[in-house]
């Protein structure tokens, strides 16, 4: 996110936590149905929304349910009527939604769900890592990650814009780091209510809304003769999203003055070593990158905002001139080649002539802090690889006690 100057309405500036900012954005999107089950650190999002509904600020149906499985079922079915819907969860709640995650995307319902990233049990932990959402990367949902509270707020509007596009019609997760963003008060510029509504698609974008006048069957059986075709349709919708997303982001810039893209790059023009990461760690990493550049080290930071669909071509062309790329994974894929982000990045380069050396850093599991000295050691690790021309360990853990 970078701020561009231009003729814009004067923004209202407020102090909000990540959870409050998400609730504020959802209210401004004028959603029709909200259903949720509380879970730390997401709870404040739906608490605020239930207040907005109770005090008349938001004209929506708020459906309290007994589990996250039901919450996602309620909003998925509501979306089939053409309603704009919202839910939010974290960690175990997302895990409990698993069965419905695939159904929401396969039914092509434009559900928007905020995920406040939190580590998965066991041992039980309430703090941030990305194992909840990265585990759901194959569920057919678009995934957007915010770096700070402002981005979490902004991405909600863009999520509806993308989800409800007729060429996409896929659900979107807006991910924000637990506590680091969800419970931290930051300065947020709000967009104008009218601008928000004119930016968003007209309601009833879902093409076959449930209507008793025109009976139809939703979620039927499709066996060996049809199932495959529906999966290819979903793959195609993800491909379409690759062109819809930057368009939605450009239009958002017009009403907000804030620039978004698949990723935000700092220092790539002359760098030898680029670090790629998701979420709030980007702030620390960029700060350290700036210090290292002052010391004469050619380092860069790429913060990935869109993880699914993976912007393969765009990342490859942005990173092809690097000597070294370091993927920072805040989750583990046990027994795999490396962390999920690392695997995607390395695989993206396989067909490409110019291939940087690619390393994987796993950090921050269960909310373990990424300190500035950890950040520095990660860049130094990349610089060392650039010097020696070899990656010493395929996966390196940073911040863990030996």
């Amino acid at each position, binding site marked *: 996110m970078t701020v561009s100057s231009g003729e814009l309405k004067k923004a209202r500036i407020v102090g909000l936590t990540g959870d409050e900012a998400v609730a504020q954005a959802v209210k401004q999107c004028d959603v029709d149905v909200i259903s949720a089950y509380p879970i730390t650190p997401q709870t404040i999002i739906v608490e605020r929304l239930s207040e907005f509904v109770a005090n008349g600020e938001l004209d929506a149906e708020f459906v309290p349910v007994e589990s996250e499985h039901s919450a996602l079922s309620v909003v998925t079915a509501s979306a089939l009527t053409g309603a704009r819907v919202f839910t939010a969860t974290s960690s175990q709640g997302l895990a409990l939604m698993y069965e419905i995650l695939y159904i929401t995307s396969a039914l092509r319902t434009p559900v928007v769900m905020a995920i406040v990233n939190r580590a998965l049990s066991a041992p039980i932990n309430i703090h941030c890592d990305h194992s909840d959402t990265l585990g759901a990367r194959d569920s057919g949902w678009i995934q957007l990650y915010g770096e700070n509270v402002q981005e979490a707020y902004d991405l909600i509007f863009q999520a509806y814009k993308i989800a409800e596009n007729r060429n996409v019609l896929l659900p979107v997760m807006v991910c924000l780091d637990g506590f680091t963003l969800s419970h931290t008060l930051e300065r947020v510029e709000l967009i104008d209510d009218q601008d928000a509504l004119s930016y968003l698609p007209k309601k009833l974008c879902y*093409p076959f809304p449930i209507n008793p006048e025109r009976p139809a069957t939703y979620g039927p059986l499709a066996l060996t003769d049809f199932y495959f075709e529906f999966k290819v*349709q979903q793959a195609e919708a993800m491909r379409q999203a690759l062109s819809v997303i930057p368009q939605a982001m450009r239009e958002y810039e017009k009403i907000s003055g804030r620039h978004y893209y698949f990723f935000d790059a700092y220092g790539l023009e002359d760098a030898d070593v680029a670090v790629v990461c998701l979420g709030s760690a980007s702030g620390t990493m960029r700060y350290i990158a700036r210090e290292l550049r002052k010391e004469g080290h050619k380092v860069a930071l790429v913060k990935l905002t869109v993880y699914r669909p993976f912007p393969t071509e765009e990342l490859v062309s942005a990173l092809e001139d690097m000597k070294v790329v370091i993927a920072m994974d805040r989750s583990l894929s046990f027994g795999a080649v490396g962390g999920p982000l690392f695997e995607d990045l390395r695989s993206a380069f396989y067909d490409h002539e110019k291939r940087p050396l690619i390393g994987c850093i796993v950090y921050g599991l269960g909310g373990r802090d990424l300190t500035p000295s950890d950040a520095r050691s990660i860049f130094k690790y990349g610089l060392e690889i650039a010097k020696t021309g070899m990656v010493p360990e395929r996966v390196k853990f940073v911040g863990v006690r030996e």
Partner: protein
Amino acid sequence: MSSKPGWREIPIGAVLLEPGSSVKVRTGDWRTFKPIIDQSKCVRCLLCWIYCPDASIKVIDVNGKVDHVEIDYEHCKGCGICERVCPRNAITMKPEGE
């Protein structure tokens, strides 16, 4: 397989826009035992019609009155319930292909 529509031609999300299309699915192909009605024993009590879970007992009317019952073999899955409920033992299940 190639006679069926491709992925570009079918509604997204597997929505079936035409109601009642299950009639077109030949569930009769799933059958291994086939119910045969002995019309000479049948008294048209219609218990089989009530119990059949697949609405596969067809009641044939002539001049507004029940004339006889037949089986819709396109949809009968061969569960054998009709055989069990028939008070006249008018229905026997015969292996398919016999």
